[in-house]
């Protein structure tokens, strides 16, 4: 269950940063991304997947969230 800091990149994409691993990856897809909620399975550009229970209302970035590894 890594703590992940999510911030908005210069080009508008979301950056997924795991401090413990110094891993910086862009988020490719988010399962639930609407005005009412944000979360579900999050897939990164390198193919790895993480899961977070959908948050409602959507959090404002940058913020630190606790993810689970999916699969």
């Amino acid at each position, binding site marked *: 269950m890594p703590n992940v800091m999510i911030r908005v990149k210069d080009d508008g994409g979301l950056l997924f940063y795991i*401090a413990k691993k*110094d891993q*910086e990856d862009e988020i490719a897809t988010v399962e639930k991304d609407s005005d009412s909620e944000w979360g579900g399975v999050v897939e990164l*550009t390198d193919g790895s997947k993480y899961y977070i229970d959908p948050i409602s209302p959507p959090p404002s970035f*940058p913020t630190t969230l606790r993810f689970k590894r999916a699969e």
Partner: protein
Amino acid sequence: MSAMTREETEALIQEVLEVYPEKAQKDRAKHLTVNDHEVEQSKKCITSNRKSLPGVMTIRGCAYAGSKGVVWGPIKDMIHISHGPVGCGQYSRAGRRNYYVGTTGINTFGTMNFTSDFQEKDIVFGGDKKLAKIMTEIESLFPLNKGITIQSECPIGLIGDDIEAVAKKTTKDIEKPVVPVRCEGFRGVSQSLGHHIANDAVRDWVLGNRDNDNSFESTPYDVTIIGDYNIGGDAWASRTLLEEMGLRVVAQWSGDGTLAEMENTPKAKLNLLHCYRSMNYISRHMEEKYGIPWMEYNFFGPTKIAESLRKIAGFFDDKIKEGAERVIEKYKAEYDAVIAKYRPRLEGKRVMLYVGGLRPRHVIGAYEDLGMEVVGTGYEFAHNDDYDRTLKEMGNATLIYDDVTGYEFEEFVKKVKPDLIGSGIKEKYIFQKMGIPFRQMHSWDYSGPYHGYDGFAIFARDMDMTLNNPCWNKIKAPWLKVDEAPEAAAAGA
């Protein structure tokens, strides 16, 4: 020698690895790679931030070096106690040339060494009492200090002293911030964890100190310089450019920096991050907690400076954008003259780098402005996010080495035959004796500054001075020179 092809470079890595035992070979192979522009993420081609192999000559430092030497040490108006035996503090004292303004021993303490000088009895009975005592002593001897940090050396963690408790108690007694930093040398694999621990100590003990104090008058143009350690005056050369374009620099972290500047940083509008590796942690924290955006910039060489100035101006209104253009225009004649003078002397020369922090990628632009080519680069203590940023900067099929060992570095140099090497003091004399021009790129070989337009002129001069120095033709003893023998005999006669 022309540039090496991908196959040649790969063969070179294989050849160098051959001498290792099988297990070591497997481990080291992961840290050496040939740059490929098609690879987007560095983790696919290089492993970094791993423990060095026992038995090889590594060039890394320790967590104490990262905290005391890099992040905390340059804060000039605080006293940094090297808590533990005397050596760690004494042998690293003032070696990094973080320049500052002030009267040493009165209101600034940058080049002084404070230590608790642990003896056997302190190890046996604990050093907390001694620590409390020396802090009250410091307070009476140097009353103008703004605060004290306790930089732990290895024994503190081993014997389990409670420096946090002492810090809290002393803070009450002397009414100044006392920051305990748990940067024992054995933590982590390199100085990199020391940076992180130091950043966390800043976050926990300093950053929030003035959260409810609104006496600081901020302007819409407040920026901070983060991760510039003012080596040879670097931060000053950067600061003038930012001020000329209309920004107000409210803090320097941590070269020539003060405690008050650090405490006021959350009131800035933009954090400018130069050394990503050592200060990205605190920048990320400030973005999350205070909503201050941060950006990485690069002040080595006119191309990168112009790029960075424009990018910085992008965060502000048209007044600053015009200011950036004005600054670039103002110095154009100056840096064009530098390039015109030195480029013909340096054109086509090949450079190999092996440094730490930000330099293995940041100085590439400066070398390219002088017509030079970086053919190999590597970091002592980088993580994968640093290599992500490096892959784009380096040419295709160039060598990249992580935590290179003394042996590997020498072999690479013998084969690649660069015209110049930029690395640390431990490598300097080996390569100079091999007859290869060398610059010590950790503290600019006692020169500097290298940042900004002013620094670029010095950078170019230094590279020329080293590369074109006549001494490199005199490395071989006269009687061993076969082809030049008649000339030598004539001179002797």
